[in-house]
């Protein structure tokens, strides 16, 4: 595995006075990898994408694709010479051209036959053979989306950039399209960078995820790493609902409002811990006389699992359990961690003891 794309110290400001929109961004994308830039709106992920595509010019830093400097202090390769494919959120299909003309648009320099072949192949990949003669407004949203992907795949780009490509589709279609497109990309071994604000999309689509905030990357890792081992409070909250525990750490363990828990790494002193709802389970209070007890506030049966809201010392916690757990609101229960709690890095410890459930929405706001 070697890096196809390396971004080093990339910086962009839109006004000389304000803070940079992109602040010394650094990451690498491996050959054949699907890489996601995930973050809330305004975090600079779209600007990063436009910098990579060449629509914006960086103030500092380098972008190197396959050993070729695309962007540097004295270099700015225009978008058309970067060999990158780009899929837009609103697809940006040319309304005056047929599906076939859209797909062959990037194939100038090829013979008519080659164009036809490559377009047919791209359309076959996305499952749209037979639609060549249609115009974009005769297609559904999902089909337009596929044409957009076929169009950017046809010229065999070295890197595919995807800007929120699934956000205009409805929920069911989104999931199906997502897994199909992922299949195509992996099958063809196409290196891709996805930009999204949807953590589920990033986690399910990408091989690695970079979580962005304020123009910087907070954490890079496989979906499992960033989900289970969030480095910061922001990452923990942005990637899903989690229980935050303000605690005193003593080495490998810590005292928390839930009692003693194991830690993901050694720590001492006041720390903030994250414990995902599925990493906790419930048991009858009587079974654990020495642990603090909580009471069930609500029970939400969701078919394959159940979400419990429990209350302890004025704070609320979330617990996802299997679907046979039959505690009811009002029951006294004990909370039992199944995994070690993750110690979050924090530049400054929270002023007030902060415990309880928070969610991505809270982090985003």
């Amino acid at each position, binding site marked *: 595995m070697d890096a196809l794309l390396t971004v080093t110290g990339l910086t962009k400001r839109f006004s000389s006075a304000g803070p940079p929109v992109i602040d010394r961004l650094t990451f690498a994308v491996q050959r054949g990898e699907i890489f996601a830039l995930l973050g809330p709106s*305004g975090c600079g992920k779209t600007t990063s994408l436009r910098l990579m595509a060449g629509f914006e010019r960086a103030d500092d830093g380098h972008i190197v694709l396959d050993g070729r400097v695309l962007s540097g202090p004295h270099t700015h390769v225009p978008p058309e010479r970067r060999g990158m494919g780009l899929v837009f959120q609103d697809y940006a299909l040319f309304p005056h051209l047929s599906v076939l003309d859209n797909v062959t*648009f990037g194939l100038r320099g090829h013979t008519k036959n080659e164009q036809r072949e490559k377009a047919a192949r791209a359309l076959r990949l996305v499952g749209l053979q037979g639609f060549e003669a249609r115009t974009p407004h005769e297609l559904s949203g999902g089909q337009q989306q596929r044409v957009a992907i076929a169009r950017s795949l046809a010229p065999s780009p070295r890197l595919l950039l995807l800007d929120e490509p699934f956000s205009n589709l409805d929920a069911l279609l989104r999931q199906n399209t997502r897994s199909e497109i992922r299949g195509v990309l992996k099958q063809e071994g196409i290196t891709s960078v996805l930009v999204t604000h949807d953590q589920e999309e990033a986690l399910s689509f990408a091989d690695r995820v970079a979580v962005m905030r304020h123009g910087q990357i907070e954490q890079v890792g496989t979906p499992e790493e960033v989900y289970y081992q969030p480095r910061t409070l922001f990452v923990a909250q942005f990637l899903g609902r989690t229980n935050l525990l303000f605690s005193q750490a003593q080495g490998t363990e810590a005292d928390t409002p839930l009692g003693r828990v194991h830690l993901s790494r050694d720590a001492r002193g006041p720390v903030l811990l994250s414990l995902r709802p599925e990493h906790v389970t419930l048991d009858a209070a009587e079974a654990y006389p020495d642990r603090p007890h909580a009471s069930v506030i609500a029970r939400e049966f969701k078919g394959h699992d159940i979400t419990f809201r429990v209350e302890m010392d004025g704070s609320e916690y979330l617990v996802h359990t299997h679907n046979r757990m039959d505690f009811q609101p009002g029951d006294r229960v004990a909370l039992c961690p199944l995994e070690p709690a993750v110690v979050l890095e924090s530049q400054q410890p929270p002023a007030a003891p902060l415990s309880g459930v928070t969610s991505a929405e809270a982090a985003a706001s």
Partner: protein
Amino acid sequence: MPDVELQEHVDASRGPQPAEPPPGSAGRSWRLREKLREWYLWGPALFVAVGVLIPMVYLVLRAAEAEPAYLAALVVRSRTLELLWNTVALTAGVLAVATAIAFPLAWLTARTDLRGKRLVTLLGVLPLAVPGYVMAYVLLATTGANGTLAQVAGLGVPRLNGFTGALLALSLYTFPYLFLNLRTALLDLDPALEESARALGYSRLQVLRHVVLPQLRPGFLAGGLLVGLHVLGDFGVVSLMRFDTFSYALYVQYTASYDRIYAACLALMLLALTAAVLFLEARLLRGLSLHRTGSGASRLTPPVRLGAWRSVGYLFAGTVTLAAVGLPLLTVGYWMQEAASIPWAALGEALRGSVSASAPAALLACGLALPLAYLSVRRSSPTTHALERIAYFGYATPPLAFALALVFFTLRTVPPLYQTLTLLIIAYALHFLAEAIGPIRTALYQAPPRLEEAARSLGRSPLQAFVAATLPLLRKGLLVSIALVFLSAMKELPITFLLSPLGFDALALKVWSYANEALFAGAAPFALALMVFSAAFVGLLLLREDR
């Protein structure tokens, strides 16, 4: 959520930020290099700026020849105030009357189930083919105790002149500028907005007032600006109707006395007034979002059923058509009857002359307007906005001063260009550029910038990307621009008088020359040819657009 993200993107790509040079000298030289690389945008823009500023420099030079005391005595007197008041009153009046004609017509053709809407639309544009001085002559000839109306129909209408006459004549042929803009705006309104307002308990009339009218403001301002500037600069109608405005006083100075200095002062005052109008328009436009936020084309609004009111609709459309198109055609036809024979040869030559100058001018104006509008929409910055505004000064510079300035500067810089068709074409294009910018700008706002980026990412250079992705979507706007400039150039007098090549003949010159000597029968064939040919040309263009 996706909307917010989109918004962020849009802000990033078109906010005022890119205007700020990035820190360091590398950034500055990059900007220059970038501009050089986009020579096809900045080159034409620079050409326009220079071309339009030349007349202003000329006027300042001329005005500066005067003794300051003499100048002060000329400018600071009660007559200046009177002229100012008359000019403002006439402009406001024409705007009001033109709106009263244009808005109902636009609504009828855009939003109702009136039958023959395409025909009514065409008829709503055709008055542009009527030259102002012909309209004025027609109104003068039809009204009054001995007017055609009194003779033919026995209608004792008082003879139109002064404020009322100028108001009516100007409104009757300038209202299409408003009509076109309002109609487009009405067609582009998102019906969901009106429907949600109705659902929130607003009546039809309240929806009109609170939802529709505010959204029509950009269209109204764009059309109103053209009408206003037209009135400011018109001298044909005000001189025939005898109404003292700045442009009339200016006309008098240039044609009746030989005082170029006072004329230059008046022209500068007129330009100051124009600057005020442009400033006002910019202020009113500020903060208006011109983009549709959603993606793709919005649904068509279901037409309003007129029911029994339909006949009222027809009556209105019919009356407007009769007054603005029928009256000139009938009157000129009536004059035509008295003509002993039709001078086919002269007619042919004049028509050829008119078209050989107007058609290239329309294309050139379009070609110049495109980069200007593109810069202003896609490279939004104070500089590009200023460049676009400059075009409006060209429109408002009195044509006579414009022509004299070009005489002066051409002979001092490129003498071989003097009295050539090329110079005439360039002069038309620069003078009427403002008419071409509006429709192109509107079309550009509706073509998503993303398309060009998609084309770039598929290997096209910026210019290629524009040609392949955006240009096809501008077709309608380009056609309307060509039509507007063509019509104006066909009618133009002072510039044609002074800048045409020797031996050049044009329909407008013939009409004016006969009509000025009251030889209406002689003028009739030329006037008729001018109107019919212009109308046919515009009809053809608009039919193409509809397909």
